[in-house]
C-alpha cells in the first residue's frame, strides 16, 4: 500500500491564490479531483507531480518528502498532461521509445505490451500527427504506464474526446486501477462518477469536500427537487434558482437545488454529482 500525503499546500500567483492550505492523504484507489475552471486542480497535480514547488506545505511519498526523494520519486510517477500533442513527426512507437529513454530502464517488451494494452499496435508506425484525439490520449496513457507507476496523474484526460473514446478511456482506467493511486483531475462529472472511489472537491484553491460520490450526494438529501413549470415562467426560475437540469417542452420539468420545497407540487429526488457540483460552484445559473 502506497501513501501520498499532501500537507497544508499553498501556492500563490501574484495576487491570485491558486491553492489555499490544502491537506489530504491518498492511498491506493482512484481519486477524482473535481472542480470548475480555475479551482486549482492543475496547480495541485503539478505540485504533487513535483513540477513546481509550493509556496508552503509539503508533499510526502510513503512518509518521505518528495524534495528529498529526487529522481527516485519520478520512478513512481506516470503523468498524462492536458492535451498531449507529442511530436507530430514521431511515429507512435518512436514516441514510446523516447518516453522509455526518458524514464530509464524500460525494456522494449514493455513498450509493445503497453501499445497492445491501449490497442495502438496497428497504428504504432504511423506519425503521431495523424492520430485522432482519442488515439493521442491512449498513447499518452501508454507512455504514462511505461514504468508501471504507483502514482498515476491524469490532467483532464477526456477533454475533447467523443463519447465512444471517453467510454474506452474509462474501461482502460478500470483495468489498471488496482495497486496504485490514480489522481484524475477533471471538470467532467460523469467521468468522476463512473471511475472515482473518492472525490476531492476543489474550489477557489481550497479542498471543500473529500468523500465518496454517495457520501457527497447524501449531504444534499432533501435539497434536490423536481417540478413542472410553464415555458413562460422558465426564464424566471432559471434566474432565481439553482437549476441543474431542464427537460420536456411545455410544461418543462426543472430540477432545482433548494433547502425547502419551492412549490406545493414539488417532488424530492435523489441527488447526483451534477447537483453536488452545482451546489458548491453554481450560484444562480
Amino acid at each position, binding site marked *: 500500500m502506497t501513501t501520498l500525503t499532501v500537507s497544508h499546500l499553498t501556492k500563490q500567483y501574484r495576487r491570485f491564490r491558486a491553492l489555499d492550505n490544502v491537506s489530504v492523504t491518498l492511498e491506493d484507489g482512484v481519486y477524482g479531483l473535481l472542480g470548475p475552471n480555475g479551482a486549482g486542480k492543475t496547480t495541485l497535480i*503539478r505540485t504533487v*507531480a*513535483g*513540477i*513546481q*514547488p509550493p509556496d508552503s506545505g509539503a508533499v510526502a511519498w510513503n512518509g518521505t518528502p518528495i524534495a528529498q526523494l529526487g*529522481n527516485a520519486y*519520478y*520512478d513512481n*510517477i506516470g*503523468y498524462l*498532461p*492536458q*492535451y*498531449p*500533442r*507529442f*511530436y*507530430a*513527426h*514521431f511515429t507512435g512507437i*518512436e514516441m514510446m*521509445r*523516447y*518516453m522509455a*529513454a*526518458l*524514464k*530509464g530502464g524500460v525494456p522494449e517488451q514493455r513498450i509493445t505490451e503497453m501499445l497492445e494494452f491501449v490497442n495502438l499496435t496497428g497504428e504504432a508506425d504511423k506519425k503521431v500527427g495523424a492520430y485522432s484525439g482519442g488515439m493521442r490520449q491512449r498513447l499518452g496513457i501508454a*507512455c504514462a504506464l511505461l514504468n508501471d507507476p504507483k502514482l498515476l*496523474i491524469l490532467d483532464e484526460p477526456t477533454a475533447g474526446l467523443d463519447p465512444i473514446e471517453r467510454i474506452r478511456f474509462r474501461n482502460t482506467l478500470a483495468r489498471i486501477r488496482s495497486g496504485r493511486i490514480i489522481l484524475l483531475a477533471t471538470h467532467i462529472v460523469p467521468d468522476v462518477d463512473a471511475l472515482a472511489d473518492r472525490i476531492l472537491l476543489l474550489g477557489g484553491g481550497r479542498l471543500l469536500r473529500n468523500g465518496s460520490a454517495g457520501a457527497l450526494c447524501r449531504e444534499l438529501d432533501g435539497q434536490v427537487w423536481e417540478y413542472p413549470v410553464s415555458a413562460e415562467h422558465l426564464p424566471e426560475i432559471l434566474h432565481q434558482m439553482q437549476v441543474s437540469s431542464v427537460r420536456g417542452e411545455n410544461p418543462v420539468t426543472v430540477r432545482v437545488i433548494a433547502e425547502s420545497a419551492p412549490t406545493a407540487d414539488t417532488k424530492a429526488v435523489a441527488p447526483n454529482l451534477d447537483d453536488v457540483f452545482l451546489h458548491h460552484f453554481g450560484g444562480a445559473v
Partner: protein
Amino acid sequence: MIALIRFELKKALGRRIIPVILLMLLTLNAVNITRHHNIFASDPMARGRYELYCTLRGEMTDEKREMIGENYRAAQLILSGGRYDTAYDPARYYSGYAYGDANLWREVQEESDRIAAYEADMQALSDAAVAANENPALSDFYRRQNAQISAAYSGRALHDLSRLEGAAALSDYRFSTVLLILMLILIAGNLYVTERENGMAEALCTARNGGRKTAAAKLISALLVTAALCILFSAADFALFMYFYRIDGLSQPIYAAEAFADSPLRCTVWQYLLLTGATKLLGLCVLSTAFTALSAAMRNAVPVFFSAVLLTVALMLCYTFWNTGAGVLLNCINPLRLLLTKWTAYAVCNVAEYPVFVPVMAVCAGTVWLMLNSVICMTAGRRRV
C-alpha cells in the same frame, strides 16, 4: 544518453520544414555563387586572368620572368600608343580583347615584381624589428612584439607564380555564414520552445532523465547540428568555388596571396582554409548555444526568433562600429570575430605586456563564451517548469 541525443536530433531535424528550408538555403547559396563568383559567366577579364595564370603558374624561373617582361612591354606599347585592336578575339587574347590582355600582363608583371621583392621586403621588416629592440627605453610589450614580428616575417620567400584569388574570394565569402546563422536560429532556437508548444514540458519534468540529462542531450545535439551544417555549407562553398571560380595554389604559403602578404601565419592555403573553418565553427557553436539558452528562457518561438535576430544584429553592430580604442579589445571577445576574422595583417592586443594575436584572443574568448553558454543552457534547461 546516446538514445536521448538521437531523439533530440530527430526532434530538431525531423520536422518536414527543416530539410525544405535547408534545401532552399543551399540552393540560394549556390545561385549566389554562380551569379557573383563565376569566372566563366560574364566577366572576360576574370576568365582571361584564370587562363593566363594556368599558362604561367609554377616556379618563377628567369626565363619566365623575361617572357612576362617582354609581354608586359609589348602591352605598354599598346596602352601608351592608344591604337589597338578593339575587336573581340578570344582565340588570340586571353580576355578576348587586346586592351584587356594589356591590363592582364601589367597585373602579372606587378605580381612578378612583388614575388621578386618579397623576400627582401620581409627580411627588412624583420631586421627593423630586431634593430628596434636595441632601444633600451622600449617597454616589455614592444620588445616582445618586435621579437614576434621578427620571428613571423624572417626567412619568408616566394618562389611560385600562382592564382590565389580563388582562395582569397572563398575566404571573403560571407553569404553562406548568414544563411547558416538563420538555420541555427530556426533549429537551436526551437529546442526548448518545442517542448512547451507540444505539451511535453511537464512530461519531461516528471521523468527521471527529463532534467539534467535531457538538458545535456539538447546541448550536445545543438553542437552536433551546428558542426554538421557548418561542414555541409563549407563543403558546398568549396565545391562551388572550385568549379565556378577555380581555386588554385592550395599548397602555396598563405602569404603568397597578395591580400595575405602581411599575414603573420606561415601555413599553406589549404591549412588556412581549415583554420578559418575551425574558428568559424567555434563562433557558430557560441551562437547556437546562445540561441539554445534563449529557447530555454522563453516560452514561445516568436520571441525567441526575434531575440536571436536582435542578438546577432547587436553583435554585428558592435563589430562594425567598435573599432577604435577600448572597442578593439571588446571586439576581441565578440563571437562574430570568429566568423569574420581573416589573419590578413599583424594585429595584436596587449595582454599583461604580452602581444597576443587578435584572432587568438577571439578563440580564447569564444571558448569561454561557449562554456558559459553551455552552463546557462544546462541550468535553464534543468529548471522545472
